[in-house]
């Protein structure tokens, strides 16, 4: 781990030599591949499948951007990054886009000079406790030993939550989710805290999931989204509007099934503008008119990607919740294509 950080630092020193401010779009086109940073493996979000092909919710964003820019959803070089190396990899130009369930925070956006292009998953930090402890609320956790997966915003939220409620706790920082679960199961900590989606996913793998409860408190906002470097607004626009295209397509009812039919032209002018049969949106981005159609052609719209990778029918089994379209009471909302 230490070595990878050091290599990351060296990368900044050596590799980029003037790559930071050059037009990323031209570089990606010249290379013929999009370099996309993902996790080293989180089920449902980004993980290689049995045949070594990357699959997942974040991976779908990479593929959509590659399809919009290069016309091919498979023209992606996936770069696995850890919590420690991800920002260095992006800042150094090793990757063009980072889609690695990264929380959008002020300091990452401003101080680290990144540009978050939107939110593809609204998450929040939750707590899991064994049912037999009889704890009903996170405020009853005074003096508890808490297993935390480090390297995220989790430690800070936890410290803030316990301080705000004037209760104490013993933090047990743990590097990976798997080790945290092992300690939690052995009773080395009373509580396990991380993003609620991850808690749900990991509880599903327990021997007896019903013996553990998620506490009602969600103590933080974790808007997870893809990000790019500061300073190349054209590239940021392309990435942002590709994500928006996936979201708008769901709202407008454009799916992988009816994509071909609708792209022949419809009565709805917004669908026409999105799919490039009307207006000049593609050329404004410096792309083909069919950019959004290509992006949608990879795995369908936002809703379809969600259901395929992390939805209720998958082993992860997450409900849409906050991640439903705004028209269904969720927060997923795209600005208009106009």
């Amino acid at each position, binding site marked *: *781990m*230490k070595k990878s*950080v*050091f290599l*990351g*630092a060296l990368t*900044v*020193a*050596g590799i*980029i*030599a*003037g790559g*930071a*401010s050059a037009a990323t779009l031209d570089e990606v086109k010249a290379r013929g591949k999009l370099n996309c940073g993902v996790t080293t493996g989180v089920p449902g979000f980004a993980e290689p499948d049995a045949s070594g092909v990357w699959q997942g919710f974040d991976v779908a964003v990479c593929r959509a951007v590659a399809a919009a820019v290069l016309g091919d959803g498979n023209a992606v070089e996936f770069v696995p990054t850890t*919590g*420690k190396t991800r*920002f*260095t990899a992006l*800042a*150094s130009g090793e990757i063009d886009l980072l889609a690695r369930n990264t929380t959008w925070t002020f*300091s*990452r956006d401003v*101080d*680290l*000079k990144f540009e978050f292009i939107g939110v593809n998953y609204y998450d929040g930090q939750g707590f899991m406790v064994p049912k037999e*402890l009889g704890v009903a609320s996170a405020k009853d*956790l*005074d*003096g*508890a*030993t808490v297993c935390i997966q*480090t*390297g*995220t*915003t989790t*430690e*800070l939220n*936890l*410290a*803030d939550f*316990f*301080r705000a409620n004037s209760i104490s*706790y*013993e*933090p*047990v*920082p*743990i*590097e990976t989710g798997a080790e945290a679960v*092992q*300690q939690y199961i*052995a*009773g*080395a*900590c*009373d509580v396990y805290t991380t993003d609620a989606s991850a808690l749900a996913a990991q509880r599903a793998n327990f021997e007896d999931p019903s013996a553990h409860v998620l506490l009602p408190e969600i103590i933080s906002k974790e808007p997870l989204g893809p990000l790019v*470097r*500061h*300073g190349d607004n054209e590239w940021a626009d392309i990435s942002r509007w590709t994500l928006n295209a996936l979201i708008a397509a769901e709202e407008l009812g454009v799916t992988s099934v009816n994509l071909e039919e609708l792209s022949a032209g419809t009565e709805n002018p917004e669908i026409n503008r999105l799919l490039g049969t009307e207006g000049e949106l593609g050329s404004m981005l410096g792309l083909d008119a069919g950019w959004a159609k290509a992006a949608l052609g990879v795995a369908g719209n936002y809703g379809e990607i969600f259901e395929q990778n992390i939805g209720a029918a998958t082993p992860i089994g997450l409900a849409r919740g906050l991640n439903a379209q705004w028209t269904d009471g969720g927060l997923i909302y795209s600005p208009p294509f106009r």
Partner: protein
Amino acid sequence: MTTLADPHKESFRLSMLLNDTRYRSLTFQFIALVAIIATMAFIGGNLVRNLAEAGLNISYDFLGAQAGYDINQRPISYDSQDTHGRAAMVGLLNTLIVAFLGCITATIIGVVAGVLRLSPNWLVRKIMAFYVEIFRNVPVLIWILIIFSIMINAAPAPNAFRGDEPTASMWLFDSIAVTNRGVYLPKPVWGAGSLLVVGVFIASIIGIFLFRRYARKQLFDHGKLIPTFWPSVALFFIPVILAQLVLGTPVSLEYPALKGFNFRGGITILGSLIALWFALSIYTGAFIAENVRAGILAVSKGQTEAAGALGLRPGRIMNLVVLPQALRVIIPPLISQYLNITKNSSLAIAVGYMDLTGTLGGITLLQTGRAIESVLLLMLFYLIISLSISFFMNIYNNTMKLQER
């Protein structure tokens, strides 16, 4: 007859830098030095320029910013409101604690195992060989993880101490609790007059030293052997206990007790510290055992035989004749083992022990995104610790060296 004139002093010519063997090596060393400096300057300049192009800069301002995270083992007072700099200090102290403890126990384990490896007893010899080979040949990270998972699964959770029929109980008259989160020990509470008790304690330690010196003087001057062990033990305990009784127990003990989720009160030794400490000691102990064995074998067999001829018993031969001479061979490689313990302690995060790598190189790095600054500072800290260990151990080595008279 001609007298030999002084050889003509050749004036220095530029071509001699290459053609004259006296200067050639200097020339190449100079060129190499310039090349190294130029490379470093290029890499450094490249780093600064690229950072500037990306709108970033090298800045250590983050050390003064609020850290915002908690640390489970705090040798100095610390909470989440303190700065990243202080968090790094807490991590540094935690590193030093585990490195210090590890060096001591690894030395003890190593010396015992090294001596026993040469034991005439076949079984003992083979057991020690087995220990050395097993521990030396498996990566230390694996040992840390194995020992930690055995500990968290074998020791009872605090929950097991609860209820009317607990499945686990505390040790030594309910004063020590061993759980899978750590070991809880009684803590001395310093009441009024406790200074006097501490004074008596220090005085009795000095007394033991004086008594032993007196006993040795008696032995050397008059050939009288005075027993020292039991009087020393008595001197150690009796005055302090008397002082406690006379002054009305100013130093009392605070016992750990199960309150809420965990044991509270007393001294807590975290499970992660124990696992890391134990794993580092037993792993490095195997290497030290080999050094000790090499050192003992380096002492000529004649020394042992001569000492035996003088009538010394085997234990005394080892302690008085062989080991002091073996130390000269043992100490130099021992220094590198101490450095290894210190550096291997950076694997602490595997068990959630918040050392320097866990705070400065872990959470601070991730939260501030200052990877280059943090890693440089981390390297500097480890460099300073390692160089200090080398420095002091070299001084010790010089005092132990064969004095030429």
